[in-house]
């Protein structure tokens, strides 16, 4: 019922790292002006490969409501095939933003009245030196470009902290690479 919360729903597959991606964005946005940050993962048993989502809420004030997001402002999709599998854009507000990891251009998608930000994160992450299929840091770059909710300096620093000892430079590089190659379209 509060109107001043930015609600972002992250969709991925179990093991793909959607929660880690949302956590990194939570940490960065907390530092850059959102003292109210809450990230609520899917509750229950997680299975590798099965669709999962996590809710990230950002606010200038403290957030008390921990219920999952019903009407997101932004939807982030770590695997474009999820768009075909279920109604994952359910509840997205009119004019809302869909950030998607896809080999296709944004024009290939038609979501009535929504903005689509597309990047081939799978390819770009690989190019940045990450193993095939590691897309959760790359998608942060696409999210940053399309949403303007945090700056890349903060995001890449938080990525490097989070991935200390686990290819921090490559993970940050993947986000930068994706940031530069994200194409924003849609809004028909």
């Amino acid at each position, binding site marked *: *019922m*509060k109107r001043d919360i930015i609600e972002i729903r992250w969709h991925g597959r179990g093991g793909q790292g959607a929660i880690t991606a949302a*956590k990194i964005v*939570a*940490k960065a946005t*907390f530092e850059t002006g959102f*003292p109210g*940050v*809450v*990230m*609520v*993962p899917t*509750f*229950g*048993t997680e299975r590798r490969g099965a669709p999962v989502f996590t809710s990230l809420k950002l606010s200038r004030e403290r*957030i*008390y*409501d*921990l*219920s*999952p997001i019903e009407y997101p402002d932004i939807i982030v999709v770590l695997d474009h095939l999820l768009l075909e599998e279920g109604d994952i854009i359910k509840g997205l507000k009119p004019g809302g933003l869909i950030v998607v990891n896809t080999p296709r251009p944004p024009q290939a998608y038609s979501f009535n009245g929504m903005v689509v930000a597309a990047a081939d994160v799978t390819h770009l992450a690989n190019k940045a030196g990450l193993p095939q299929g590691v897309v959760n840091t790359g998608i942060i770059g696409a999210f940053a470009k399309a949403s303007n909710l945090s700056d890349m300096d903060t995001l890449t620093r938080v990525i490097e902290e989070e991935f200390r000892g686990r290819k921090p430079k490559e993970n940050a590089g993947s986000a930068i690479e994706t940031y530069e190659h994200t194409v924003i379209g849609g809004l028909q």
Partner: protein
Amino acid sequence: MQIIESGNVAAALGVKLSRAQVIAAYPITPQTPLTEKLSEIIEAGDMTAEYIPVESEHSALAICIAASSAGARSFTATSANGLLYMHEQLHWASGARLPIVMCVVNRGVGAPWTVWNDHQDSMSQRDTGWIQIYANDHQQIIDSVIKAFALAEEVMIPVMVCYDGYLLSHTYMPFDIPEATLTDSFLPPYRPAYCLDPDEPANLNTVTLSDVRTDINGVKAHGYMEIRHLLQQDMLASMDAIERVDSRFKNIFGRGGSPFIESYRSDDARFIAVGIGSLSYHLRDVVDDLRDEGISVGVMSMQLYRPFPYQAVAKALKDCQGVIVFEKALSYGYQGPVCSDIKSALYHYVGPEGSRPFVLNYILGLGGREILTKDLYEGLKLSCTTKPSSPDKPRWIGLKL
């Protein structure tokens, strides 16, 4: 230092800062990440403690009982059926007056099996002689764990720090990690008045006669009932200790000040909603909306459930018109336990017109049933605007029969 982490990590960091010496736990959802984090911290050498893996929750608490009897600061954690499996040992720990601290990551109990949140697990252990503290957010989790050790060791009664499974255990939010130098001064090493001593063998809690008796030194020794009476007396007296510990913590860390209940927009409220844990914060949003509509309503959260802070509860509620208790637990065949306890606390307070506030009970969120803001809003609004009928029967929110 502010960090963004899960509630389970907040609890683990609290245990680390408390310098627990023996940790014995059996993993159970949604407690698992807490004990995993502790074993990681110990394995990495960031904490000096014995981490004892066990084959059951019963053994976990048995080990804490033994370790605490030997004078070690002991910690365990569990959820749901794991807590129920400890039941016998819970009574033992409190009867033996051991200052064990346990996190209960609240989850519904089977059957049918569930892994999701409600409060049936810890509520059903209300009468085991443990102090029960409930946290509403991650800051309260980490702070309560540290305070719990100080409290337990002052009153020699074990303490449960309860927090919502998933809703708090698995969500991420910012919280402050207290400075270790400050927590060390707040909570010095545990120096028990008595602990097991090989040079001075003794029998502890063996068969204790119904009546008092003369011991081998010719001194009158307590019977079972005297020992139980002292537990009750000390449990009630622990409310003073809880206030002292809380204010000492506040002086150092600047947080706290409401160890019994936490009130929100309640000073002038005609109606007060009552909740425990994250639900009480969720209700704040609803109260804000209802206030915008001109309905005079506030929220009270129960921070402490045992000992029951009956005076603070009565003081906060006796002058309002209606109390609406939202509960995630049920005493089957009657109503929610918190509702009954609140009514009991209000019994002696009769208003000028011979009236007391009405007390209504809502049952919701059992086994993780999603609690929708609009359902809370409608339930609370209805209770504030219409005369209640059959108030002793709890109403259910979110039921889809």
